[in-house]
C-alpha cells in the first residue's frame, strides 16, 4: 500500500490570515483592470479630458474661489468624478464575477466574502488614486489651477477616500443588475449625479427649484465636502447629512441584495 507516503494530518492544516485578503490579490486584480482599456479610458482619461475642456477657459479660470481659483475648483470636481467612476466600476465587477460563477468558485476557497469585497475596494482605490493623480498632475502641468500646496494634498486625499461611498453604490447596482447593463446604468447615473452635485455646472446657474432638488442627489454632499478646504467659509451640516444618508442607503441596498444573493446560490 502506497499510503505510506503519508498525507499531512487533516488537523495540521492552517487557515489563512485576514480571511484570505492579501496584497498579491490586489496586484493581480490591478493587472487585470489595466488590461481592460475601457476601464482605463473611462476612469483616467475622461476626467483629464473634461478638466482640459472645462478647467482652462480663460473667461473664468482665474476667478478667485476661496483660497484659490476656479480652475482649481474644477480640477477637484473632475478628480472626484474620476475617483467615483473608479470605485463604483471596480465594485460593480463583483456582480459580473458572480454571474460568471467566479464568486461561487471562490466560495470553495478560504476567501471570506468580506475579504473578497475588501480586495475589490483596495483595487478600486488604487485605480481611483491613478485617476486623481492624473487629473492633478495635468492641472499642475498646465499651471492654471492655483491653491496652496496643503490644499492640493488635503482635497486630493479627502476626495480619494470619500469616493469609497460610491463603492457601496457600485456594489448595490452590481448586485441589483448583474450584467453589462449594470455598468451602463452606473455610468449614466454618475453622469446625472455629477450634474446634480454641481461637478459639471456650478449649481448657482440652476433655477431655484433645481438647486433645491440637487441638494438631495448623492454626489452633492461629497462634492461640497471635498471642495471645503478650498472654498472654506461655514461648513453646512446638511452636506454631511446628505453624505451619511446616501452611505446608509447604498450600503443597506448592497447588504440587502447580497443577503438575497447568498441565500440563492
Amino acid at each position: 500500500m502506497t499510503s505510506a507516503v503519508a498525507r499531512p494530518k487533516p488537523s495540521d492544516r492552517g487557515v489563512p490570515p485576514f480571511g484570505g485578503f492579501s496584497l498579491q490579490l490586489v496586484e493581480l486584480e490591478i493587472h487585470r483592470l489595466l488590461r481592460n482599456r475601457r476601464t482605463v479610458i473611462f476612469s483616467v482619461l475622461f476626467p483629464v479630458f473634461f478638466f482640459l475642456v472645462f478647467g482652462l477657459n480663460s473667461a473664468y479660470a482665474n476667478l478667485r474661489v476661496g483660497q484659490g481659483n476656479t480652475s482649481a475648483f474644477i480640477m477637484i470636481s473632475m478628480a472626484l468624478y474620476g475617483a467615483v467612476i473608479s470605485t463604483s466600476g471596480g465594485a460593480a465587477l463583483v456582480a459580473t464575477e458572480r454571474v460568471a460563477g467566479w464568486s461561487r468558485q471562490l466560495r470553495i476557497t478560504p476567501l471570506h466574502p468580506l475579504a473578497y469585497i475588501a480586495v475589490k475596494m483596495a483595487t478600486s482605490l488604487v485605480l481611483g488614486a491613478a485617476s486623481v493623480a492624473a487629473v492633478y498632475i495635468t492641472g499642475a502641468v498646465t499651471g492654471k489651477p492655483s491653491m496652496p500646496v496643503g490644499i492640493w494634498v488635503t482635497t486630493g486625499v479627502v476626495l480619494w477616500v470619500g469616493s469609497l461611498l460610491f463603492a457601496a453604490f457600485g456594489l448595490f447596482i452590481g448586485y441589483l443588475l448583474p450584467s453589462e447593463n449594470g455598468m451602463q446604468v452606473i455610468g449614466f447615473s454618475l453622469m446625472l449625479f455629477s450634474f446634480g452635485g454641481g461637478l459639471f455646472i456650478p449649481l448657482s446657474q440652476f433655477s431655484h427649484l433645481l438647486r433645491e432638488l440637487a441638494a438631495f442627489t448623492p454626489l452633492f454632499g461629497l462634492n461640497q465636502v471635498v471642495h471645503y478646504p478650498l472654498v472654506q467659509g461655514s461648513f453646512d451640516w446638511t452636506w454631511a447629512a446628505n453624505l451619511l444618508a446616501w452611505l446608509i442607503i447604498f450600503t443597506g441596498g448592497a447588504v440587502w441584495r447580497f443577503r438575497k444573493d447568498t441565500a440563492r446560490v
Partner: protein
Amino acid sequence: MNVVGQTAEHLPSRGVGAGPPAIELRDLHKTFGSVNAVRGVDLRIDAGQVVAFLGPNGAGKTSTIDMVLGLSEPTSGSVSVYGLSPRDAVRKGLVSAVMQTGGLVKDFTVAETVRYVAHLFASSQPAQEVMERAGIDAIGDRLVGKCSGGEQQRLRFAIALLPDPDLLLLDEPTQGMDVEGRRSFWAAIRHDADQGRTVVFATHYLEEADAYADRVVLIRKGEIVADGTAAQVKALASGRTVRATLPDADEASLSAIGGVDSVEVRGDSVVVHCSDSDAVARHLLTRTDACDLEIAALGLEEAFIALTGDGGADNLSEGRFR
C-alpha cells in the same frame, strides 16, 4: 444481497486508516420550496476511496455535493467532512472541487488564475507544479476567455489541486475533454488516490465510473438506491446472462434453479437471465451436456437505467435487491 445502505467497509481503503471519515452524511434532506431534492441520504465515505456518484439529472447529486462543500445548508440532517463542518474543511484546504458551474474570470490569464487561487490558501502547492500536472503549463499566458472548454476544465482541475486536498469532489470532471485528455486526467486522479486522496466524482460517462471507481453510489429522486462496487451494482440491476450451446434444453428444469428470471431457447443455444450465474453455470456444466458457456454481466449503463429509471422503484420493491 444487501448492498443498499451498507457503508461498504469491504471496499479497498488506501487511506490513512483510523480517523474520521472523509464524508459523513446523516439523514440529509434538502428542500427547495416544494421540491425535495435530497430525501434522507445516509452515506459514509472513508478516506482513500474513489467513489462514483451516479444519477440522472435532478436526482440530487449536485444538491448533495453543494452541501458537502458548504455552498448550501441542509434543510435537516448533518454533513461532516473529516469531522469538521464543510466550511471549516474548505477553509483548511481539506476539500476542493471541480464544479460544473465553477466560473472563471475571462480577462485573467491561465497562470494568473492559478496564482490568484494559490494566494488564498494558508499553504499551497506551487502554481507551476499544478499547471504541469493539469497539462496547462504551456498555455499559462493565454487569457482564460480564449481557452477551449477542455482547457478551462483542466484549469479548474489545476485550481482544485492547489491546496493538495484530502478530499476532491468532481462534478462531471471530464466534460469537454478529448479522449486523450480524459485518459491523462484519470491517470492523475488514480495516482493521487493511491497516495490516500479521497475522490468523489459525479459523471454521466458510465464507463468512467466502471473503470475508475472503487465504489458506485446510485442516487435517484434524492435517495440512494444502490451502493457497492461497480460489479455489484451491475449485478443488482440486471443480474447476469449465461449463454450456452445445449441442444434440446429442458426449459422447465433451468427455470427451477434459484435466481433465474427467464430462460430463452434459440435453436441449439440457451440464454438464461439470472441473479446467481454460478448456480446456473454449475447446473449446466454438471447436469447437462452444455458447452461453449459464456457468462456476461450487463453494462453499468443498463444497471443505471434499470435502477434510476421510472421502473427503478418497482425493481426494488420486488425484493430482488434485498
